[in-house]
Structures are given as structure tokens and as C-alpha cells.
């Protein structure tokens, strides 16, 4: 438990600017809530465009989270535990998708995996597989932007882990696999869960890289954020209804992780 901060009488200017900052966060949501067509919500969210988008978003964001776990956990372990040349550079590269505008990430994916990309071109020639405009393309874009959350969360947890427990397990004859499964992973479980939740939330909200790399087709690549973007021009109420779903998910993730964020500060 941290020591309570000493209380100060706040400067008036800080109160004014702080209130303005709070408004920046609160006003947009108020705007949305005021305009929300509450009574029509069930009909709007079961409309086939919205239902397809909801389902596709669920499937692709979960697939991206699994991909991020399968690939990101080993990467986090290597960054935290292994000593190899270029580790610092690799750690920096992992952070790039966090800072990069997603549309730039989507463009980069297109040049790599697009039909005329360095990998995508030969891939289509050899197998006939086209990654852009496919559901797999949506998962790739979402994995690209969301995996950093898992890697940095788990890497930090592994670094802070007291190595003596793992050492003891090894001394007692546990194989490296058993130690990882029975000691390491359970000990970093809270961070792992938080990393997975953040990764999933980011994958669910992904827009820029998806529309740039995977295009926009109902039922195949049109995820919830894309459906909101398209609906804004034709059916405002549907756009608001789908936005409310995304806000509800965001709030749920924050509530679920609140202990972690506020206690560790």
C-alpha cells in the first residue's frame, strides 16, 4: 500500500484546466448518449449488417488474441530472459505498432503481404492465397496492432519475477517445460490476464490497419469499427448503436482491470 499523498489546496487555474480536461473525455460520450436511439437499440443491433459485424469482430479479435498469446508469450520470454545481440532493437520494434498510426501499419502490411507485396506476391503465385480482403487479413492486422500490449505486459512481469522459485523447482527435478507451466506462468498470471484483456480490447477496436489492408465487405472483413464508419454516412442510429456496444466493452475491460491499474500506480 502506498502512503497517501499530502493534500494541497488546489490552485484555481489547475481546477479550471483540470475540469476542462475532464470535459474533453466526458463530452463526446454525453453527445453519443443524448443521441442514442435507446428504444430502437435491440432492432438496430440485430439488423444483419450489425449482427454480422458483431460476430466477425468477436471471432477475429479472439483469433488475434490467441495468435498474440501463442507468438507473443515466447517473444516476451526471450526479451526478458535470453541474452542475444539486438535485443534492445527488437524491444523497440515491438513498441512501434503502439505508436504508429494504424493506417501506416496497414499500408506496411499491404506492401509486405498484399498481392504485389514482397511476400504476398510469391504467396499468391504459389498457393493462390490472397490475404488482403480476407478474414485472415483482418486477424493479421489486428494481431499486428494488439500483440505489443501482451508482449510488454508479460515481459515486465517476467523481469520482476523472483527467480528463486523457478530455481527451486528446477533443483527439485522439474523439466523446463514443467517449470514454465507450473511455476512461471501461474506466478505471472495477473499480468498475463491483464495483457490478454488489453490485447483483446485493442484487437476489437482496430480500424485503420484493417480497412487499409483487409478492405471492407460485410460478413468477411467488415468488423464493428468499420461498420460504424460506413453506417455513419447512411444510418446514423445504427452507427450510434454499434458505438455503444464498443463503449460498453471498453468500460467492462476497465472495470475488470481497475484493481491492477489503480493499485500499482
Amino acid at each position: 500500500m502506498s502512503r497517501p499523498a499530502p493534500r494541497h489546496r488546489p490552485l484555481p487555474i489547475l481546477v479550471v484546466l483540470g475540469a476542462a480536461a475532464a470535459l474533453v473525455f466526458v463530452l463526446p460520450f454525453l453527445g453519443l448518449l443524448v443521441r442514442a436511439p435507446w428504444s430502437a437499440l435491440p432492432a438496430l443491433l440485430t439488423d444483419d449488417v450489425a449482427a454480422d459485424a458483431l460476430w466477425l469482430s468477436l471471432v477475429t479479435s479472439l483469433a488475434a488474441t490467441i495468435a498474440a498469446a501463442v507468438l507473443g508469450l515466447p517473444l516476451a520470454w526471450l526479451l526478458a530472459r535470453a541474452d542475444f545481440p539486438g535485443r534492445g532493437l527488437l524491444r523497440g520494434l515491438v513498441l512501434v505498432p503502439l505508436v504508429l498510426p494504424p493506417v501506416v501499419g496497414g499500408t506496411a502490411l499491404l506492401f509486405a503481404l498484399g498481392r504485389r507485396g514482397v511476400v504476398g506476391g510469391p504467396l499468391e503465385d504459389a498457393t493462390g492465397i490472397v490475404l488482403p480482403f480476407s478474414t485472415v487479413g483482418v486477424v493479421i492486422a489486428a494481431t499486428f496492432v494488439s500483440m505489443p500490449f501482451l508482449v510488454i505486459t508479460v515481459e515486465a512481469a517476467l523481469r520482476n519475477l523472483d527467480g528463486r522459485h523457478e530455481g527451486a523447482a528446477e533443483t527439485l527435478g522439474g523439466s523446463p517445460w514443467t517449470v514454465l507451466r507450473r511455476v512461471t506462468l501461474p506466478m505471472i498470471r495477473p499480468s498475463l490476464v491483464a495483457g490478454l484483456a488489453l490485447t483483446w480490447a485493442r484487437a476489437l477496436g482496430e480500424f485503420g490497419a484493417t480497412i487499409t489492408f483487409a478492405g471492407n465487405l460485410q460478413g468477411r472483413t467488415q468488423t464493428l469499427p468499420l461498420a460504424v464508419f460506413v453506417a455513419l454516412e447512411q444510418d446514423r442510429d445504427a452507427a450510434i448503436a454499434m458505438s455503444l456496444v464498443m463503449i460498453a466493452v471498453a468500460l467492462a475491460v476497465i472495470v475488470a482491470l481497475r484493481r491492477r491499474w489503480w493499485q500499482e500506480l
Partner: protein
Amino acid sequence: MGSRRLATAVSLLVLAAVGCGTVEGRPRTVLVSAAASLSEAFDAIELQFEVAHPDVDVQLNVAGSSALVAQVVEGAPVDVLALASEDTMARVIEEGLVAGPAIVFARNAPIIAVPAGNPAGIDGLDAFGDPDLVLGLCAEAVPCGQLAREVLAAAGVGPDLDTVEVDVRSLLTRIESGELDAGIVYATDVRDGRRAVESIPIDTTATTSYPVVRVASAPNPSDADAFIDFVLSRQGREILASFGFLSP
């Protein structure tokens, strides 16, 4: 002393200059919202209009017609609205957001666009039913999407699409980059050598009409009318024709 007071005076002057449109020597602005397919033609019209009206600064806001309508409905301070279909314009008129009649100033024909060299060997509208090709159209909400679906329906082709784009420019970009094998765009989009795309004509008489109107809440109605007059003038029509638009 002085420096603080000076800073205050300077910032007040800056604020006055920014906040007040009638400062001497500062051009009046007209905000023109134009459909994506008008982008290049309206760039040229803007240039010529500003030569004729040196005290007016035209600002072009280019997007898909339905996005432009949504902006006006939400109260964007637009002076002139030029769209790529009369159906889309009808939505603005119904909402009572226009001043005066919408006047059709140009027409455009649909055309099949393919990447340079036509790698997939597309030869007509029938290709749009082929599930093995990678195909795109504009969204149904934007005029190029309405027109494309109209000609496909007339040809009896149920399109097997891979992506639906929010405006004609993003569809063209995907064709140009070779990601799509074909898409249906406007004839004006595929004129000789301007983009790395080739065109295949469509046997149809269907066209889309471009109406222009002054927005009821236009902040600068007099210059808005001057701009519309210029678009409808002989000079304006010559510019549009030079970009491949058909006369109304």
C-alpha cells in the same frame, strides 16, 4: 516592464486578425464540398475562379457524396455542395438544407477499371460474377456504387465482391495498386495515362448527374452564388469537359 504588456497586445492583435473576417487584405473564404470524382476538375475550377475573384479563397472539401451530405446535416459551415447524384442531393433537399434549386452541371458514365496491363484479363461486366477474381465496387450509399449496381443489374450479373469502398478514389487506389483485378468507376477517373489503370467500356446509356446548390446556412452566400455561376458558365463547362465530364 513593457515586455509582458507588449506580449498581451500582440496576442490580442493576433486574436483579432484570426477572429475577424473583414481585416483588410485577407481574402473571404468559400467552403465548397465536392464529390470525390470531381476532385481534379474542381481543383482546376478553383484555380480559374480565384484568378477571376482574387479577393476570394475557395476551400475544397472532397469526400464521397454521402459523407458530404452527413456533414451538412450535422451543421458543417459549407457554402456550396456539389454531389455526384440527384438521389443523394434529394436527401439534402428533403431536410430543407438548401437555398434555391439544385442545378445539374455535368454527367458521368460508368466504366470498368483494371490495373495497368489488365493482369486478370477482364473483358466485360460478366467478370464481376467470377468468384476467383478479386473485385470491388463503391458502397451502395455513394453514387458510383449506385451506378455500378444499376449497370450490373441491367446486365444480369450478380456481383461476387471482395471489398466495398466508401468513395471512388479509394476504389481507384486499390485497382491502381493491383490489389483488385477490377472495379467500376467513372469514365473521368480513367483518362489517358493519368493513373496506372486501364479502362474497359461498358455498353450502357446509364449516367450519373452532378447537381450543385448553395447550402441554406452558407456563411458566405454571395461568393457561394458567384462560385456556382462560375461552374455553370461557359468557362466552367469547358474545364469540366476537358476532364471528360459529359454536358448536362
